[in-house]
């Protein structure tokens, strides 16, 4: 178990499995730490030593370029040895290998495992079986906590605050772990969160999750400080949630005309990868209000902060 710590930990969690369970204080702590990491990442000498000698495993059951490379870079900048494992899912059913893989990796004595899995709850299941810290890099439609943190950091750096801002999260809320984590974190930090999407892409009971619900972009975008677009999970569209991509773009895609309904200084965000011409027009994605590239930079900083915060709980940490 844990060694007694010389000082009281400032981040009282061993794992980061989701935003649920974190307090506003925890979130602010991580954001402040990430702010420092932004500075580190902009120096020529980017290396720190807080994870020196530690082993970080990126265990991705679902392909991801952005998140995986972001965690890899974050780990390396903190001095950890980073191993990337993309688990092939062709021969065996995904779930069957999950715990076996976890136990195998656990035996190699890693300090932190970063996990992405296609099924909600898979990361919880794994965290119960291993001895090291676990970071959720996205589990099904459940949570993607580091994405929510990097979004919060991007907003805070641009607007100077989060409290009181009107944030509109738009599109496929139903299948989006990014939406769930962002609803939790931004609400906890005092923002007014709206979700906008067609009824077929809104989860049941969403109105009880502390958000305002809109079915039309025109209504939901009015007065928004932040417009957060979600990727339309096209691979999940076979069930016929929407009639066509053309119709979706017409009513729910963010173009300049719809963006004009938000506040003039509204920021446009997207967790990537984008479907240009489906949920967002290129002119908006590349326009002056877009912060999409900055989000990627903040991603590395936030992941450095998370790894560092969790390292306080590692044995001999």
């Amino acid at each position, binding site marked *: 178990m844990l060694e007694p710590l010389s000082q009281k930990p400032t981040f009282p969690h061993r794992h980061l499995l989701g935003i649920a369970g974190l307090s506003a204080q925890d979130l602010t702590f991580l954001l402040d730490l990430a702010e420092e990491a932004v500075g580190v990442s902009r120096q020529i000498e980017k290396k720190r030593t807080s994870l020196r000698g530690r082993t970080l495993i990126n265990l991705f059951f679902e392909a991801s370029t952005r998140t995986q490379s972001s965690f890899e870079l974050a780990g390396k900048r903190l001095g950890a040895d980073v191993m990337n494992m993309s688990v092939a899912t062709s021969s065996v059913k995904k*779930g069957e290998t999950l715990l076996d893989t976890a136990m195998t990796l656990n035996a190699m004595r890693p300090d932190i495992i970063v996990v992405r899995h296609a099924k909600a709850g898979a990361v919880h299941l794994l965290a119960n079986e291993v001895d090291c810290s676990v970071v959720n890099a996205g589990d099904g439609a459940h949570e993607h906590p580091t994405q929510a943190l990097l979004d919060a950091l991007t907003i805070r750096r641009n607007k100077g605050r989060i409290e009181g801002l009107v944030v509109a999260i738009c599109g496929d809320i139903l299948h989006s772990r990014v939406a769930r984590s962002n609803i939790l974190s931004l609400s906890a930090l005092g923002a007014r969160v709206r979700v906008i999407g067609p009824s077929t892409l809104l989860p049941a009971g969403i109105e009880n999750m502390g958000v305002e619900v809109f079915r039309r972009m025109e209504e939901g975008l009015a007065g928004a400080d932040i417009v957060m677009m979600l990727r339309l999970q096209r691979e999940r569209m076979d069930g016929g949630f929407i009639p066509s991509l053309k119709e979706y773009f017409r009513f729910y895609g963010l173009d300049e005309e719809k963006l004009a309904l938000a506040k003039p200084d509204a920021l446009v965000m997207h967790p990537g990868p984008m479907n240009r011409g489906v949920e967002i027009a290129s002119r908006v994605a590349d326009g002056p209000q877009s912060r999409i590239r900055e989000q990627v930079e903040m991603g590395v900083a936030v992941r450095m902060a998370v790894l560092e915060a969790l390292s306080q709980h590692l044995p001999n940490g």
Partner: protein
Amino acid sequence: MTYRVSPETPPPLALVNARLVDGAADCERRGGVLVLDGDIAAVGPEVTAAALPAGVPVIDCCGDVVTSGLIDMRVFVGEPGAEHRETIASATAAAAAGGVTTLLTRPDTFPPVDEAAVVDFLLRRARDTGRVRLLPTAALTKGLRGEEIAEIGLLLQAGAVAFSNGTHSVRNAQVMRRLLAYARDFDALTIHYAVDEDLVGDGVMNEGERASRLGLAGIPREAEAVMLDRDIRLVNLTGARYHAALVTTTLSVEVIRAAKAAGLPVTCATSINHLTLNENDIGEYRTFLKVAPPLREEDERLALVEALAEGVIDVIVSDHDPQDVETKRLPFAEAEFGAIGVETMLSAGLRLVTSGHLTLPRLIRALSTRPAEILGLPQGRLAVGAPADLIRFDPGEPFVVNRKKLHSRCRNTAFDQARLEGRVKLTLVGGNTVFALSETGEALLS
């Protein structure tokens, strides 16, 4: 049909100084039961130790409840083809320990129970390895595919007591209409798991805020009600006897209530899980609480308890479904549905009595008497001439469920570490003792 678990005539026995609970009379009184030749020979306050003929062994029940053994209408016994999950020996051992003296087996085995030979196999295996009465439910349609009517007449002759497709629904309304019409000719009971599989889709838990927060696909209550609605219209058309295998929502309760008010030959069951647990018990993805239909909201649970107290819901089943580690230690969406429950059904049900929602006779009525009435069985009541399928328990005796001590081959109980009351102390089937607790609380299987 009835057959003796043991071919020999059991010895006489008297249970005295008991709290007699009769689900049929909806009452309780002090007294005793005299068992002769495997049947109840006398029952009531006049059966006392002093009044008994000499030579009859007497058990002083010290004020414990004595009532008719439970009849569980939905149990998966693993045979044939899934013996790694359960066997008739293990399922009936669990049943005996839980006070269940008659169980109906689910037909969705491997192969399914869609031929007379499989019914015969089950009855022979039960005779050779079973501890309590086992009654086969046969398939409604061949291969459970929902396309062709099974050989209902031949299966009945072989010993099937009812017809069901297990966890499958008959999707095609024309097939359902024809099989109900055909079943009516044989006065066969159709037990249907009414669920619209299209509305279920890839859903894994009750649709609503909890599922949305967990990122799990939801199953709407309507998935059940839509199919049940269709079925009731077809029952109205055909006049067949129909039993809804599992009713878990207020929407379905209303459908059943209306059907009964219209005088249709309709009955229904709900599971002990849906009466005593709700979706919040899933917590952080506890797959042992992944059942089908899914656990609902607390309001729905309370409405089910109320419908049971009113008699709109007739029967409580355990929906015993053993699943091994390989199918449960998975991400929630990938794990199998199902929980074991035959051994804990009575104790879990007593929670409803303790909470004041249900009287003890009403509970026993749903667990024993109503199933017997629906199936036309002579047991399920404390009456002279009925088979001596009896259980004894102290409804106030507390214990903690330990999944490792249950008799099933699988451990997937939704009640692990639950604090329950009322362990079964003695189970008789046809006058034979099939389960007894020792003075020290050790389970003794005969």
